């Protein structure tokens, strides 16, 4: 099944700055998904990214805060903008596979 390379694996950022997270899939996938996992919490879907169209955001998430790019069928980025300490989380990308869904290794973000 598909393998996703996600980077960076972790980062410590100053409040007010932005961080872009990248996910590269080793095969073409129709959709990619972005999740947030806050400390001690489960995974929450941020948005669904299709190639060639704007991402679809879930309730509580907006494009200005979490802009997403999907330039082709193997790549996507998520930017966390104007960061605050409340954005400290693990961010994961995901893609559908014949088995179900595969996940990147996650980006552990700490905002100070």
């Amino acid at each position, binding site marked *: 099944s598909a393998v996703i390379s996600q980077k960076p694996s972790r980062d410590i950022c100053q409040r007010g700055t932005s961080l872009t997270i990248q996910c590269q899939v080793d095969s073409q996938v129709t959709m990619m998904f972005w999740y947030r996992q806050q400390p001690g919490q489960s*995974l929450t879907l941020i948005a669904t990214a299709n190639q060639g169209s704007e991402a679809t955001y879930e309730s509580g998430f907006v494009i200005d805060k979490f802009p997403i790019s999907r330039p082709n069928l193997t790549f996507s980025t998520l930017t966390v903008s104007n960061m605050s300490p409340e954005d400290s989380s693990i961010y994961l990308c995901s893609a559908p596979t014949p088995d179900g869904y595969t996940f990147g290794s996650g980006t552990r973000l700490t905002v100070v």
Partner: protein
Amino acid sequence: AQSVAQPEDQVNVAEGNPLTVKCTYSVSGNPYLFWYVQYPNRGLQFLLKYITGDNLVKGSYGFEAEFNKSQTSFHLKKPSALVSDSALYFCAVRVLYSGAGSYQLTFGKGTKLSVIP
């Protein structure tokens, strides 16, 4: 609303003993159910899934899960726990996100499994 629940935040079990991590679900239609494991500082790894067929599903690392439609449960089991099984386990159900028009996973809150030597 479609959801999945993991009633236990933590499960402790002695090495060599059988383990069970509980999951119940609420969906309309036939459920597609998954178990994932997350080790510290790692992403999610797929363990097993139930879509249709035999109610007992066998997965990776000796894990299995039993689908029980009448009890709307999908408990994860292993006959003999290993210390290396200590991790965070997530149950998930595939749901249709109408906004995106796509199927995606909704996760339980996770259960931390600690296997004691």
